[in-house]
């Protein structure tokens, strides 16, 4: 598979000028993200996951090391807009990322900044709003919408820029369960359409659809692999004070009770199937 993002020896420090002290947020991270993949990055607060996300589109510039997005170095000022067009970003707070008081004008903001032709902006805006099922709200004011709807508008705003990669920085952290579900569905759909998805989250249940899971701990990569691989190392995850998905926990407890369900089950349907099979064997 083709690499779309390459992270080499990335170190990032936040400088606190008032104390002359520096806080190490990322300590020598090395990762490759492949085109078309769905990567979930999980970690506690302070694990460096959001800092990592902001390093992927040049909002933060590495203290040392390099990040390449589609071959462009994020530290290069001349190509920063190329990078930001290719790697869109959806933020945590749906309110604080919408610019205009009319939905369709907000979605048009990105393409307008890119200097796209007006007729083409119109087409992209309509298409992007359809993609997130918000077509009929295009003339509404964002402050009258629910959190989940606002976040869908924010996603449409990024989609209208035609990015190759979308980085979601805890997009569901401020939403109710219904809004969370809507957003996760849209993320899965965008991935199916061929967009490379990077999802930063601290909800374990959201990562089971990903094809790669990276667990961050203390500014470094703790585990990296398919969900099955990563969650089979439940003891390491728990050692980093993180929870494992419910089905992984259930599997562990069943095995401890002497019920031999196979390892690596993370989805509810698979667990049901495994238990039914065991039952019919007895």
């Amino acid at each position, binding site marked *: 598979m083709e690499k779309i993002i390459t992270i080499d020896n990335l170190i990032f420090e936040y400088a606190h000028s008032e104390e002359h002290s520096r806080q190490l947020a990322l300590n020598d991270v090395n990762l490759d993200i492949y085109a078309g993949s769905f990567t979930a990055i999980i970690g506690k607060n302070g694990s460096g996951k959001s800092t990592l996300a902001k390093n992927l589109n040049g909002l933060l510039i590495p203290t040392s090391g390099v990040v390449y997005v589609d071959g462009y170095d994020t530290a290069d000022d001349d190509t920063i807009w190329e990078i930001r067009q290719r790697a869109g970003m959806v933020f945590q707070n749906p309110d604080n990322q919408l610019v205009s008081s009319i939905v369709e004008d907000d979605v048009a903001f990105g*393409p307008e900044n890119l200097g796209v032709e007006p007729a083409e902006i119109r087409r992209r805006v309509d298409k992007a709003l359809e993609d997130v099922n918000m077509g009929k709200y295009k003339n509404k004011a964002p402050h009258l919408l629910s959190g989940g709807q606002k976040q869908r508008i924010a996603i449409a705003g990024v989609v209208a820029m035609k990015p190759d990669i979308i980085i979601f920085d805890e997009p569901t952290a401020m939403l109710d369960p219904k809004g969370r579900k809507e957003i996760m569905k849209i993320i899965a759909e965008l991935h199916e359409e061929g967009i490379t998805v990077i999802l930063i989250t601290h909800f374990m249940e959201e990562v089971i659809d990903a094809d790669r899971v990276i667990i961050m701990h203390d500014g470094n990569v703790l585990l990296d692999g398919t969900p099955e691989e990563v969650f089979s190392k439940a003891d390491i995850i728990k050692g980093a004070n993180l929870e494992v998905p419910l089905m992984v926990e259930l599997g562990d407890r069943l095995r401890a009770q002497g019920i031999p369900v196979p390892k690596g089950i993370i989805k509810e349907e698979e667990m049901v199937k495994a238990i039914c099979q065991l039952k019919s064997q007895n």
Partner: protein
Amino acid sequence: MIRDITLGQYYPGDSLIHKLDPRVKIIATLLFIIELFIVDNFIGFAICGAVLAAVIIVSKVPLSFIMRGLKPILFILFFTFALNIFMVKGEVIWSWGILHITKEGVRIAVFMAIRLVLLIIGSSMLTLATKPLSLTDGIERLLSPLARFGFPSHEIAMMMTIALRFIPTLLEETDKIMKAQQARGADFETGGLMKRAKALIPVLVPLFVSAFRIAQDLAMAMEARCYRGGDGRTRMHEMKLKKRDFIAFALEAIFLAIVIIEARMF
């Protein structure tokens, strides 16, 4: 209560006046204000009043809605009226103690009152029949020739757009902070003016902090969406003058000519 606030005083509608290009409306309003100061007799005011009435009828904005906007300036209106009627010297027609009403005073007071009322209603028609956002767009395009001389026309328009967008957000934030403090025993409703003003300080401090946080978040989101100022930026809504805009402009020019001629003749 915060959910249903209207931004500015826009009256949603689909009339010809609503559809006109905002630039035409801004220029027409400015010309109307100038005309009001050219006029120096009652026939002139009658012409201006008739034109304004026609605009109101075409715009389909209810009269009661317009009058509501007049309420806050009622005091100023009354004050200037009283000032003019008692202060202007001339042929005395009524006096009581040190107060004298003169013929010229009555004339000027009525004159100024009519001028003020027409001025307020005329300029409020602009904001009543134009969406706040198209108004900012219109101002940006009208000022854009000045950008060559370093005038920040795009920046001003962007600031107004963002201010409009965040008024409801900040109101919600204020509501949240006040409720959180009321839950812990803060009292905003009793006591004198000073006491109430003091009670608001603990609201304003966290409000400012959260405004800075919002600004920081928004700046980052705008940068992530490739915002880099007005250069090289295109717009989804193109502003093209249509036939109706030229007609409106022609009518405005004729109106201006009539007012000037009328002022010269009488």
